[in-house]
Protein backbone atom coordinates (compact mmCIF):
# COMPACT_ATOMS: atom_id res chain seq x y z
CA UNK A 1 0.00 0.00 0.00
CA UNK A 2 2.74 2.42 1.04
CA UNK A 3 4.79 1.47 -2.01
CA UNK A 4 1.84 2.13 -4.30
CA UNK A 5 1.11 5.47 -2.64
CA UNK A 6 4.74 6.56 -2.93
CA UNK A 7 4.88 5.54 -6.59
CA UNK A 8 1.59 7.26 -7.34
CA UNK A 9 2.70 10.40 -5.50
CA UNK A 10 5.95 10.53 -7.45
CA UNK A 11 4.00 10.15 -10.73
CA UNK A 12 1.76 13.04 -9.64
CA UNK A 13 4.83 15.09 -8.79
CA UNK A 14 6.30 14.42 -12.25
CA UNK A 15 2.99 15.53 -13.77
CA UNK A 16 3.12 18.77 -11.75
CA UNK A 17 6.69 19.42 -12.92
CA UNK A 18 5.70 18.71 -16.54
CA UNK A 19 2.68 21.00 -16.14
CA UNK A 20 4.95 23.74 -14.77
CA UNK A 21 7.23 23.20 -17.76
CA UNK A 22 4.27 23.55 -20.11
CA UNK A 23 3.14 26.79 -18.42
CA UNK A 24 6.68 28.17 -18.48
CA UNK A 25 7.33 27.12 -22.09
CA UNK A 26 4.03 28.54 -23.32
CA UNK A 27 4.98 31.98 -22.08
CA UNK A 28 8.34 31.66 -23.86
CA UNK A 29 6.34 31.50 -27.09
CA UNK A 30 4.98 35.02 -26.67
CA UNK A 31 5.84 36.54 -30.05
CA UNK A 32 8.53 39.22 -29.86
CA UNK A 33 10.14 40.63 -26.76
CA UNK A 34 7.87 40.06 -23.71
CA UNK A 35 9.15 43.33 -22.21
CA UNK A 36 7.97 45.24 -25.30
CA UNK A 37 4.69 43.29 -25.27
CA UNK A 38 4.11 44.38 -21.67
CA UNK A 39 5.37 47.97 -21.76
CA UNK A 40 4.54 48.82 -25.37
CA UNK A 41 6.57 49.89 -28.41
CA UNK A 42 7.26 53.39 -27.12
CA UNK A 43 8.67 52.34 -23.76
CA UNK A 44 11.97 53.86 -22.65
CA UNK A 45 14.94 51.52 -23.32
CA UNK A 46 15.98 51.72 -19.65
CA UNK A 47 12.51 50.66 -18.52
CA UNK A 48 12.61 47.79 -21.02
CA UNK A 49 16.04 46.70 -19.77
CA UNK A 50 14.87 46.87 -16.14
CA UNK A 51 11.80 44.77 -16.92
CA UNK A 52 13.88 42.22 -18.82
CA UNK A 53 16.07 41.81 -15.73
CA UNK A 54 13.01 41.63 -13.48
CA UNK A 55 11.48 38.92 -15.67
CA UNK A 56 14.83 37.15 -15.83
CA UNK A 57 14.93 37.46 -19.62
CA UNK A 58 18.66 38.12 -19.56
CA UNK A 59 19.43 34.50 -18.61
CA UNK A 60 18.91 31.42 -20.86
CA UNK A 61 15.37 29.91 -20.72
CA UNK A 62 16.48 26.59 -19.20
CA UNK A 63 18.30 28.37 -16.38
CA UNK A 64 15.34 30.71 -15.92
CA UNK A 65 12.98 27.74 -15.63
CA UNK A 66 15.13 26.03 -12.99
CA UNK A 67 15.39 29.32 -11.05
CA UNK A 68 11.63 29.84 -11.27
CA UNK A 69 10.82 26.26 -10.21
CA UNK A 70 13.30 26.46 -7.32
CA UNK A 71 11.60 29.72 -6.30
CA UNK A 72 8.17 28.08 -6.50
CA UNK A 73 9.34 25.27 -4.20
CA UNK A 74 10.71 27.84 -1.73
CA UNK A 75 7.47 29.85 -1.85
CA UNK A 76 8.97 32.65 -3.92
CA UNK A 77 6.67 32.80 -6.95
CA UNK A 78 8.01 36.09 -8.26
CA UNK A 79 6.45 39.52 -8.18
CA UNK A 80 3.29 40.68 -9.92
CA UNK A 81 3.97 43.32 -12.57
CA UNK A 82 0.56 44.89 -12.03
CA UNK A 83 0.36 44.93 -8.24
CA UNK A 84 4.08 45.05 -7.43
CA UNK A 85 3.50 42.47 -4.69
CA UNK A 86 4.62 38.83 -4.29
CA UNK A 87 2.59 36.49 -6.51
CA UNK A 88 2.29 33.84 -3.77
CA UNK A 89 0.70 36.34 -1.36
CA UNK A 90 -1.76 37.55 -4.00
CA UNK A 91 -2.75 33.98 -4.89
CA UNK A 92 -3.16 33.07 -1.22
CA UNK A 93 -5.59 35.95 -0.64
CA UNK A 94 -7.63 35.09 -3.75
CA UNK A 95 -7.81 31.43 -2.76
CA UNK A 96 -9.74 32.66 0.28
CA UNK A 97 -12.63 33.23 -2.11
CA UNK A 98 -12.11 30.48 -4.72
CA UNK A 99 -11.62 27.58 -2.30
CA UNK A 100 -14.77 28.19 -0.19
CA UNK A 101 -16.68 28.66 -3.45
CA UNK A 102 -15.46 25.35 -4.90
CA UNK A 103 -15.84 23.42 -1.64
CA UNK A 104 -19.32 24.84 -1.08
CA UNK A 105 -20.38 23.89 -4.61
CA UNK A 106 -18.92 20.38 -4.28
CA UNK A 107 -20.70 19.94 -0.93
CA UNK A 108 -24.05 21.05 -2.40
CA UNK A 109 -23.51 18.74 -5.38
CA UNK A 110 -22.76 15.75 -3.09
CA UNK A 111 -25.66 16.47 -0.75
CA UNK A 112 -28.06 16.44 -3.68
CA UNK A 113 -26.50 13.89 -6.02
CA UNK A 114 -25.51 11.02 -3.75
CA UNK A 115 -28.92 10.43 -2.10
CA UNK A 116 -30.78 11.19 -5.33
CA UNK A 117 -28.59 8.93 -7.47
CA UNK A 118 -28.85 6.03 -4.99
CA UNK A 119 -32.61 6.59 -4.62
CA UNK A 120 -33.08 6.61 -8.41
CA UNK A 121 -31.04 3.42 -8.79
CA UNK A 122 -33.12 1.64 -6.15
CA UNK A 123 -36.29 2.68 -7.95
CA UNK A 124 -35.13 1.75 -11.42
CA UNK A 125 -38.09 1.25 -13.72
CA UNK A 126 -40.50 3.12 -11.41
CA UNK A 127 -42.43 6.21 -12.52
CA UNK A 128 -39.96 8.55 -10.77
CA UNK A 129 -36.84 7.07 -12.41
CA UNK A 130 -37.31 8.75 -15.84
CA UNK A 131 -38.04 12.06 -14.08
CA UNK A 132 -34.69 11.89 -12.24
CA UNK A 133 -32.91 10.89 -15.46
CA UNK A 134 -34.51 13.71 -17.45
CA UNK A 135 -33.86 16.27 -14.70
CA UNK A 136 -30.20 15.23 -14.49
CA UNK A 137 -29.84 15.34 -18.31
CA UNK A 138 -31.32 18.83 -18.38
CA UNK A 139 -29.33 19.99 -15.36
CA UNK A 140 -26.07 18.79 -16.88
CA UNK A 141 -26.85 20.73 -20.09
CA UNK A 142 -27.39 24.06 -18.31
CA UNK A 143 -24.24 26.21 -18.42
CA UNK A 144 -23.33 27.17 -14.84
CA UNK A 145 -22.77 30.81 -15.81
CA UNK A 146 -26.26 31.00 -17.35
CA UNK A 147 -27.76 29.44 -14.24
CA UNK A 148 -25.84 32.09 -12.30
CA UNK A 149 -27.45 34.84 -14.38
CA UNK A 150 -30.91 33.30 -13.86
CA UNK A 151 -30.31 33.07 -10.10
CA UNK A 152 -29.27 36.74 -10.06
CA UNK A 153 -32.38 37.63 -12.05
CA UNK A 154 -34.66 35.85 -9.61
CA UNK A 155 -33.07 36.09 -6.17
CA UNK A 156 -31.20 39.39 -6.50
CA UNK A 157 -33.14 41.48 -9.05
CA UNK A 158 -36.72 40.25 -8.43
CA UNK A 159 -36.80 39.12 -4.80
CA UNK A 160 -33.79 41.15 -3.56
CA UNK A 161 -32.93 38.42 -1.07
CA UNK A 162 -29.26 38.08 -1.91
CA UNK A 163 -26.57 40.29 -3.48
CA UNK A 164 -26.16 40.13 -7.27
CA UNK A 165 -22.38 40.17 -7.00
CA UNK A 166 -19.32 41.48 -5.20
CA UNK A 167 -17.59 40.25 -2.07
CA UNK A 168 -17.10 42.36 1.08
CA UNK A 169 -14.19 40.26 2.43
CA UNK A 170 -13.98 37.78 5.30
CA UNK A 171 -12.32 40.26 7.67
CA UNK A 172 -14.83 43.06 7.02
CA UNK A 173 -18.09 41.12 7.22
CA UNK A 174 -18.12 37.30 7.47
CA UNK A 175 -21.94 37.12 7.35
CA UNK A 176 -22.18 39.27 4.21
CA UNK A 177 -19.32 37.29 2.68
CA UNK A 178 -21.24 34.06 3.20
CA UNK A 179 -24.37 35.71 1.72
CA UNK A 180 -22.32 36.79 -1.29
CA UNK A 181 -21.22 33.20 -1.89
CA UNK A 182 -24.68 31.55 -1.68
CA UNK A 183 -25.80 32.22 -5.27
CA UNK A 184 -22.38 31.45 -6.82
CA UNK A 185 -22.22 28.17 -4.86
CA UNK A 186 -25.71 27.24 -6.06
CA UNK A 187 -24.90 28.16 -9.68
CA UNK A 188 -21.78 26.02 -9.61
CA UNK A 189 -23.12 23.19 -7.45
CA UNK A 190 -26.53 22.51 -9.02
CA UNK A 191 -25.17 21.69 -12.48
CA UNK A 192 -22.51 19.50 -10.92
CA UNK A 193 -25.20 17.77 -8.85
CA UNK A 194 -26.98 16.84 -12.08
CA UNK A 195 -23.83 15.30 -13.57
CA UNK A 196 -23.05 13.45 -10.32
CA UNK A 197 -26.61 12.13 -9.96
CA UNK A 198 -26.36 10.35 -13.30
CA UNK A 199 -22.96 8.89 -12.45
CA UNK A 200 -24.00 7.79 -8.95
CA UNK A 201 -27.14 6.14 -10.31
CA UNK A 202 -25.11 4.29 -12.94
CA UNK A 203 -22.51 3.19 -10.32
CA UNK A 204 -25.22 1.90 -7.97
CA UNK A 205 -27.07 0.11 -10.77
CA UNK A 206 -23.83 -1.58 -11.75
CA UNK A 207 -23.24 -2.84 -8.21
CA UNK A 208 -26.89 -3.82 -7.64
CA UNK A 209 -26.65 -6.10 -10.68
CA UNK A 210 -23.68 -8.04 -9.23
CA UNK A 211 -23.99 -11.65 -8.06
CA UNK A 212 -23.01 -10.91 -4.45
CA UNK A 213 -25.91 -8.47 -4.08
CA UNK A 214 -28.29 -11.08 -5.49
CA UNK A 215 -26.80 -13.61 -3.05
CA UNK A 216 -27.24 -11.20 -0.14
CA UNK A 217 -30.88 -10.75 -1.13
CA UNK A 218 -31.36 -14.51 -1.57
CA UNK A 219 -30.00 -15.05 1.96
CA UNK A 220 -32.91 -12.96 3.17
CA UNK A 221 -30.89 -9.99 4.41
CA UNK A 222 -32.97 -6.87 5.02
CA UNK A 223 -32.96 -4.29 2.21
CA UNK A 224 -31.14 -1.75 4.38
CA UNK A 225 -28.31 -4.18 5.03
CA UNK A 226 -28.07 -5.15 1.35
CA UNK A 227 -27.82 -1.53 0.31
CA UNK A 228 -25.54 -0.09 2.99
CA UNK A 229 -23.30 -3.08 3.77
CA UNK A 230 -23.01 -4.68 0.34
CA UNK A 231 -23.99 -2.35 -2.48
CA UNK A 232 -23.03 1.14 -1.29
CA UNK A 233 -19.62 0.14 0.09
CA UNK A 234 -18.71 -1.38 -3.25
CA UNK A 235 -20.08 1.55 -5.20
CA UNK A 236 -17.97 3.93 -3.10
CA UNK A 237 -14.87 3.46 -5.27
CA UNK A 238 -16.74 4.82 -8.27
CA UNK A 239 -18.46 7.47 -6.19
CA UNK A 240 -15.11 8.74 -4.85
CA UNK A 241 -13.83 8.96 -8.42
CA UNK A 242 -16.92 10.99 -9.27
CA UNK A 243 -16.29 13.19 -6.23
CA UNK A 244 -12.71 13.86 -7.35
CA UNK A 245 -13.90 14.72 -10.85
CA UNK A 246 -16.57 17.01 -9.47
CA UNK A 247 -14.07 18.85 -7.25
CA UNK A 248 -11.92 19.41 -10.32
CA UNK A 249 -14.92 20.61 -12.33
CA UNK A 250 -16.10 23.08 -9.68
CA UNK A 251 -12.61 24.45 -9.10
CA UNK A 252 -12.19 25.13 -12.82
CA UNK A 253 -15.84 26.19 -13.17
CA UNK A 254 -15.26 28.80 -10.46
CA UNK A 255 -13.20 30.81 -13.00
CA UNK A 256 -16.39 31.60 -14.95
CA UNK A 257 -18.65 31.93 -11.90
CA UNK A 258 -16.28 34.46 -10.30
CA UNK A 259 -16.69 36.56 -13.43
CA UNK A 260 -20.52 36.31 -13.32
CA UNK A 261 -20.71 37.36 -9.66
CA UNK A 262 -17.72 39.74 -9.71
CA UNK A 263 -15.98 37.72 -6.99
CA UNK A 264 -12.33 38.59 -6.32
CA UNK A 265 -11.12 35.00 -6.68
CA UNK A 266 -8.14 33.38 -8.34
CA UNK A 267 -9.89 32.92 -11.71
CA UNK A 268 -10.88 36.56 -11.97
CA UNK A 269 -7.35 37.57 -11.06
CA UNK A 270 -5.98 35.29 -13.81
CA UNK A 271 -8.30 36.92 -16.36
CA UNK A 272 -7.16 40.37 -15.25
CA UNK A 273 -3.54 39.20 -15.49
CA UNK A 274 -4.06 38.32 -19.18
CA UNK A 275 -5.44 41.80 -19.89
CA UNK A 276 -2.50 43.41 -18.06
CA UNK A 277 0.10 41.04 -19.54
CA UNK A 278 1.10 40.19 -15.96
CA UNK A 279 2.92 36.97 -16.87
CA UNK A 280 4.38 36.08 -13.42
CA UNK A 281 0.92 36.32 -11.85
CA UNK A 282 -0.74 34.36 -14.66
CA UNK A 283 1.98 31.69 -14.51
CA UNK A 284 1.39 31.27 -10.77
CA UNK A 285 -2.39 31.15 -11.06
CA UNK A 286 -2.38 28.56 -13.85
CA UNK A 287 0.16 26.46 -11.96
CA UNK A 288 -2.09 26.45 -8.89
CA UNK A 289 -5.06 25.24 -10.94
CA UNK A 290 -3.09 22.55 -12.80
CA UNK A 291 -1.34 21.27 -9.64
CA UNK A 292 -4.66 21.11 -7.78
CA UNK A 293 -6.14 18.95 -10.54
CA UNK A 294 -3.15 16.58 -10.47
CA UNK A 295 -3.21 16.33 -6.68
CA UNK A 296 -6.97 15.71 -6.57
CA UNK A 297 -6.44 12.86 -9.00
CA UNK A 298 -3.71 11.49 -6.70
CA UNK A 299 -5.99 11.71 -3.65
CA UNK A 300 -8.73 9.83 -5.50
CA UNK A 301 -6.29 7.05 -6.40
CA UNK A 302 -4.95 6.97 -2.85
CA UNK A 303 -8.44 6.53 -1.43
CA UNK A 304 -9.16 3.42 -3.49
CA UNK A 305 -7.14 1.17 -1.19
CA UNK A 306 -8.96 2.44 1.88
CA UNK A 307 -12.35 1.79 0.32
CA UNK A 308 -11.81 -1.48 -1.49
CA UNK A 309 -9.54 -4.09 0.12
CA UNK A 310 -9.62 -6.13 -3.10
CA UNK A 311 -7.36 -3.59 -4.69
CA UNK A 312 -3.87 -4.92 -4.13
CA UNK A 313 -0.83 -2.79 -4.37
CA UNK A 314 2.52 -4.05 -5.46
Amino acid at each position, binding site marked *: MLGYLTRRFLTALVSVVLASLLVFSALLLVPGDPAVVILGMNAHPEALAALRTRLGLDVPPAQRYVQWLAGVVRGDWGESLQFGRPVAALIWVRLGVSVPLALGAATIACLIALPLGIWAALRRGSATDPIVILASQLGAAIPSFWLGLLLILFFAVELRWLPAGGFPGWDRSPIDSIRALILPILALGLGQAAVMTRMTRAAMLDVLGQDYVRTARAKGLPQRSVIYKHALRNALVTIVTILGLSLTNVFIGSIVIEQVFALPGLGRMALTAIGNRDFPLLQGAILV*YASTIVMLSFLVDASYGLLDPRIRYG
Partner: protein
Amino acid sequence: MSGTRLNLVLGGWLIGLVVGGALLSFVWLPHDPNRLDFAAQFAAPSAAHWLGTDHFGRDLFSRVLIGARGTLYVGVIAVGIALSVGCFVGAVAGFVGGVLDEVMMRLVDVLYAFPAILMALLLAAVYSPGTLTAMIAIGLATVPIFARLIRASVLSIKGRDYVEAGRALGARSPRVLGVYILPGAVSPIVVQASLSLAVAVLAEAALSFLGLGTPPDVPSWGNMLREAQGFMALSPYPAVVPGLAIMLTVLGWSLLGDGLRDWLDPTTRR
Protein backbone atom coordinates in the same frame (compact mmCIF):
# COMPACT_ATOMS: atom_id res chain seq x y z
CA MET B 1 -40.58 4.11 -27.78
CA SER B 2 -37.51 2.61 -26.09
CA GLY B 3 -35.12 4.86 -24.17
CA THR B 4 -32.39 4.37 -26.78
CA ARG B 5 -34.68 5.35 -29.63
CA LEU B 6 -36.09 8.30 -27.68
CA ASN B 7 -32.56 9.60 -27.02
CA LEU B 8 -31.60 9.22 -30.68
CA VAL B 9 -34.77 10.85 -31.99
CA LEU B 10 -34.84 13.73 -29.50
CA GLY B 11 -31.08 14.32 -29.78
CA GLY B 12 -31.28 14.12 -33.57
CA TRP B 13 -34.14 16.63 -33.66
CA LEU B 14 -32.37 19.11 -31.41
CA ILE B 15 -29.11 18.94 -33.37
CA GLY B 16 -31.09 19.02 -36.61
CA LEU B 17 -32.67 22.26 -35.43
CA VAL B 18 -29.30 23.82 -34.62
CA VAL B 19 -27.71 22.70 -37.90
CA GLY B 20 -30.83 23.79 -39.81
CA GLY B 21 -30.79 27.18 -38.07
CA ALA B 22 -27.11 27.66 -38.86
CA LEU B 23 -27.63 26.75 -42.54
CA LEU B 24 -30.75 28.91 -42.75
CA SER B 25 -28.75 31.91 -41.50
CA PHE B 26 -26.66 31.79 -44.72
CA VAL B 27 -29.72 32.34 -46.94
CA TRP B 28 -32.29 34.04 -44.73
CA LEU B 29 -32.41 36.10 -41.55
CA PRO B 30 -35.49 37.97 -40.30
CA HIS B 31 -33.34 41.06 -39.51
CA ASP B 32 -29.78 42.23 -39.88
CA PRO B 33 -28.27 40.76 -36.66
CA ASN B 34 -26.04 43.82 -36.15
CA ARG B 35 -28.57 46.56 -37.03
CA LEU B 36 -29.08 48.93 -34.10
CA ASP B 37 -32.68 49.98 -33.52
CA PHE B 38 -32.97 52.07 -30.39
CA ALA B 39 -36.74 52.40 -30.85
CA ALA B 40 -37.02 48.64 -30.31
CA GLN B 41 -34.68 48.28 -27.29
CA PHE B 42 -35.54 45.38 -24.94
CA ALA B 43 -38.65 44.45 -26.95
CA ALA B 44 -40.51 41.35 -25.77
CA PRO B 45 -41.12 38.53 -28.27
CA SER B 46 -43.59 39.68 -30.93
CA ALA B 47 -44.47 39.14 -34.61
CA ALA B 48 -41.75 41.64 -35.57
CA HIS B 49 -39.09 40.17 -33.29
CA TRP B 50 -39.86 36.51 -32.56
CA LEU B 51 -37.52 36.22 -29.59
CA GLY B 52 -37.38 39.93 -28.66
CA THR B 53 -34.46 42.35 -28.89
CA ASP B 54 -31.40 43.29 -26.84
CA HIS B 55 -30.13 46.59 -25.37
CA PHE B 56 -29.25 47.90 -28.84
CA GLY B 57 -32.62 46.81 -30.28
CA ARG B 58 -30.89 44.03 -32.26
CA ASP B 59 -33.08 41.07 -33.17
CA LEU B 60 -32.33 38.16 -30.83
CA PHE B 61 -33.63 35.45 -33.19
CA SER B 62 -31.30 36.59 -36.00
CA ARG B 63 -28.37 36.72 -33.56
CA VAL B 64 -29.16 33.26 -32.20
CA LEU B 65 -29.19 31.87 -35.76
CA ILE B 66 -25.78 33.43 -36.48
CA GLY B 67 -24.56 32.16 -33.10
CA ALA B 68 -25.49 28.61 -34.12
CA ARG B 69 -22.93 28.81 -36.93
CA GLY B 70 -20.11 29.74 -34.57
CA THR B 71 -21.10 27.09 -32.03
CA LEU B 72 -21.05 24.33 -34.64
CA TYR B 73 -17.91 25.66 -36.29
CA VAL B 74 -15.87 25.87 -33.07
CA GLY B 75 -17.29 22.62 -31.68
CA VAL B 76 -16.69 20.55 -34.80
CA ILE B 77 -13.17 21.89 -35.42
CA ALA B 78 -12.19 21.53 -31.74
CA VAL B 79 -13.45 17.95 -31.57
CA GLY B 80 -11.78 17.33 -34.96
CA ILE B 81 -8.44 18.46 -33.49
CA ALA B 82 -8.94 16.27 -30.41
CA LEU B 83 -9.98 13.32 -32.53
CA SER B 84 -7.05 13.58 -34.95
CA VAL B 85 -4.34 14.14 -32.34
CA GLY B 86 -5.90 11.82 -29.74
CA CYS B 87 -6.47 8.98 -32.20
CA PHE B 88 -2.95 9.24 -33.63
CA VAL B 89 -1.31 9.29 -30.19
CA GLY B 90 -3.58 6.61 -28.73
CA ALA B 91 -3.28 4.31 -31.75
CA VAL B 92 0.51 4.56 -31.99
CA ALA B 93 0.99 4.22 -28.21
CA GLY B 94 -1.30 1.20 -27.98
CA PHE B 95 0.07 -0.47 -31.12
CA VAL B 96 3.79 0.04 -30.51
CA GLY B 97 3.64 -0.32 -26.71
CA GLY B 98 6.72 -0.31 -24.48
CA VAL B 99 8.61 2.87 -23.66
CA LEU B 100 6.95 4.87 -26.44
CA ASP B 101 3.54 4.02 -25.01
CA GLU B 102 4.65 5.02 -21.52
CA VAL B 103 6.17 8.35 -22.65
CA MET B 104 3.26 9.30 -24.94
CA MET B 105 0.62 8.53 -22.36
CA ARG B 106 2.49 10.40 -19.59
CA LEU B 107 2.55 13.45 -21.86
CA VAL B 108 -1.15 13.02 -22.57
CA ASP B 109 -1.76 12.78 -18.82
CA VAL B 110 -0.22 16.23 -18.40
CA LEU B 111 -2.97 17.59 -20.67
CA TYR B 112 -5.52 16.27 -18.14
CA ALA B 113 -4.29 18.98 -15.80
CA PHE B 114 -5.33 21.64 -18.33
CA PRO B 115 -9.09 21.72 -18.91
CA ALA B 116 -10.33 23.92 -21.78
CA ILE B 117 -10.63 27.14 -19.77
CA LEU B 118 -7.16 26.78 -18.28
CA MET B 119 -5.67 25.95 -21.67
CA ALA B 120 -7.46 28.99 -23.13
CA LEU B 121 -6.00 31.23 -20.39
CA LEU B 122 -2.55 29.98 -21.30
CA LEU B 123 -3.04 30.42 -25.04
CA ALA B 124 -4.67 33.83 -24.59
CA ALA B 125 -1.54 35.01 -22.80
CA VAL B 126 0.65 33.92 -25.71
CA TYR B 127 -1.57 34.86 -28.63
CA SER B 128 -4.58 37.16 -28.69
CA PRO B 129 -7.76 35.54 -27.42
CA GLY B 130 -10.07 34.57 -30.27
CA THR B 131 -11.92 31.85 -32.10
CA LEU B 132 -8.76 30.03 -33.16
CA THR B 133 -7.23 29.93 -29.68
CA ALA B 134 -10.60 28.79 -28.26
CA MET B 135 -10.78 25.94 -30.78
CA ILE B 136 -7.21 24.85 -30.09
CA ALA B 137 -7.72 25.09 -26.31
CA ILE B 138 -10.90 23.00 -26.37
CA GLY B 139 -9.31 20.57 -28.82
CA LEU B 140 -6.11 20.06 -26.80
CA ALA B 141 -8.05 19.69 -23.56
CA THR B 142 -10.13 16.92 -25.17
CA VAL B 143 -7.14 15.03 -26.64
CA PRO B 144 -6.59 12.78 -23.54
CA ILE B 145 -10.14 11.37 -23.72
CA PHE B 146 -9.70 10.21 -27.32
CA ALA B 147 -6.11 9.05 -26.80
CA ARG B 148 -7.10 6.85 -23.83
CA LEU B 149 -10.17 5.54 -25.65
CA ILE B 150 -8.30 4.56 -28.82
CA ARG B 151 -5.35 3.11 -26.90
CA ALA B 152 -7.72 0.87 -24.92
CA SER B 153 -9.48 -0.26 -28.12
CA VAL B 154 -6.19 -0.96 -29.92
CA LEU B 155 -4.86 -2.93 -26.95
CA SER B 156 -7.99 -5.07 -26.84
CA ILE B 157 -8.11 -5.68 -30.58
CA LYS B 158 -4.45 -6.10 -31.54
CA GLY B 159 -4.17 -9.60 -30.04
CA ARG B 160 -7.20 -11.01 -31.84
CA ASP B 161 -6.92 -13.88 -34.31
CA TYR B 162 -7.94 -11.95 -37.41
CA VAL B 163 -5.25 -9.35 -36.71
CA GLU B 164 -2.67 -12.11 -36.36
CA ALA B 165 -4.01 -13.59 -39.62
CA GLY B 166 -3.51 -10.22 -41.30
CA ARG B 167 0.09 -10.13 -40.11
CA ALA B 168 0.64 -13.71 -41.25
CA LEU B 169 -0.59 -12.70 -44.70
CA GLY B 170 2.24 -10.18 -44.81
CA ALA B 171 0.46 -6.94 -43.95
CA ARG B 172 2.80 -4.23 -42.69
CA SER B 173 2.24 -2.42 -39.38
CA PRO B 174 0.46 0.69 -40.80
CA ARG B 175 -1.90 -1.57 -42.78
CA VAL B 176 -2.56 -3.81 -39.77
CA LEU B 177 -3.38 -0.72 -37.70
CA GLY B 178 -5.44 1.03 -40.35
CA VAL B 179 -7.28 -1.88 -41.93
CA TYR B 180 -7.57 -4.52 -39.20
CA ILE B 181 -7.54 -2.64 -35.89
CA LEU B 182 -8.89 0.90 -36.17
CA PRO B 183 -12.22 0.05 -37.86
CA GLY B 184 -13.04 -1.95 -34.71
CA ALA B 185 -12.64 1.22 -32.64
CA VAL B 186 -14.99 3.40 -34.68
CA SER B 187 -18.10 2.90 -32.52
CA PRO B 188 -16.67 4.26 -29.26
CA ILE B 189 -15.10 7.16 -31.19
CA VAL B 190 -18.42 8.16 -32.73
CA VAL B 191 -20.13 8.06 -29.33
CA GLN B 192 -17.33 10.01 -27.65
CA ALA B 193 -17.30 12.59 -30.47
CA SER B 194 -20.96 13.33 -29.87
CA LEU B 195 -20.48 13.60 -26.09
CA SER B 196 -17.36 15.74 -26.58
CA LEU B 197 -19.31 18.08 -28.85
CA ALA B 198 -21.68 18.71 -25.93
CA VAL B 199 -18.71 19.64 -23.72
CA ALA B 200 -17.19 21.73 -26.54
CA VAL B 201 -20.39 23.77 -26.92
CA LEU B 202 -20.37 24.53 -23.19
CA ALA B 203 -16.66 25.36 -23.26
CA GLU B 204 -16.99 27.64 -26.30
CA ALA B 205 -19.86 29.52 -24.70
CA ALA B 206 -17.94 29.87 -21.43
CA LEU B 207 -14.81 31.13 -23.23
CA SER B 208 -16.81 33.67 -25.26
CA PHE B 209 -18.53 34.76 -22.05
CA LEU B 210 -15.11 35.36 -20.50
CA GLY B 211 -13.89 37.23 -23.57
CA LEU B 212 -11.48 34.43 -24.51
CA GLY B 213 -13.45 33.04 -27.45
CA THR B 214 -15.39 34.48 -30.36
CA PRO B 215 -14.54 38.20 -30.82
CA PRO B 216 -17.07 40.57 -29.19
CA ASP B 217 -18.26 42.01 -32.52
CA VAL B 218 -19.40 38.59 -33.78
CA PRO B 219 -22.77 37.36 -32.45
CA SER B 220 -22.13 34.21 -30.44
CA TRP B 221 -24.24 32.73 -27.67
CA GLY B 222 -21.54 33.31 -25.04
CA ASN B 223 -21.03 36.91 -26.18
CA MET B 224 -24.79 37.52 -26.10
CA LEU B 225 -24.93 36.31 -22.49
CA ARG B 226 -22.00 38.52 -21.49
CA GLU B 227 -23.63 41.57 -23.03
CA ALA B 228 -26.99 40.74 -21.44
CA GLN B 229 -25.48 40.51 -17.98
CA GLY B 230 -25.59 44.26 -17.41
CA PHE B 231 -29.22 44.70 -18.44
CA MET B 232 -31.04 41.84 -16.76
CA ALA B 233 -33.10 44.18 -14.59
CA LEU B 234 -34.47 45.82 -17.76
CA SER B 235 -35.32 42.70 -19.78
CA PRO B 236 -34.78 38.97 -19.19
CA TYR B 237 -34.96 37.95 -22.87
CA PRO B 238 -31.39 38.84 -23.95
CA ALA B 239 -30.10 36.57 -21.14
CA VAL B 240 -32.70 33.81 -21.39
CA VAL B 241 -32.69 33.25 -25.18
CA PRO B 242 -28.98 32.44 -25.80
CA GLY B 243 -28.83 30.40 -22.61
CA LEU B 244 -31.72 28.26 -23.81
CA ALA B 245 -29.99 27.83 -27.16
CA ILE B 246 -26.82 26.59 -25.44
CA MET B 247 -28.76 24.28 -23.14
CA LEU B 248 -30.77 22.68 -25.95
CA THR B 249 -27.66 22.18 -28.12
CA VAL B 250 -25.71 20.58 -25.26
CA LEU B 251 -28.73 18.42 -24.45
CA GLY B 252 -29.00 17.42 -28.12
CA TRP B 253 -25.39 16.25 -28.39
CA SER B 254 -25.61 14.43 -25.03
CA LEU B 255 -28.82 12.61 -25.95
CA LEU B 256 -27.41 11.73 -29.35
CA GLY B 257 -24.22 10.40 -27.74
CA ASP B 258 -26.16 8.35 -25.17
CA GLY B 259 -28.51 7.04 -27.86
CA LEU B 260 -25.63 6.10 -30.16
CA ARG B 261 -23.79 4.34 -27.32
CA ASP B 262 -26.82 2.19 -26.50
CA TRP B 263 -27.62 1.60 -30.17
CA LEU B 264 -24.07 0.57 -31.09
CA ASP B 265 -23.68 -1.63 -28.01
CA PRO B 266 -25.05 -5.09 -28.85
CA THR B 267 -25.64 -5.85 -25.15
CA THR B 268 -28.14 -3.00 -24.77
CA ARG B 269 -29.65 -2.95 -28.27
CA ARG B 270 -33.01 -4.59 -28.53
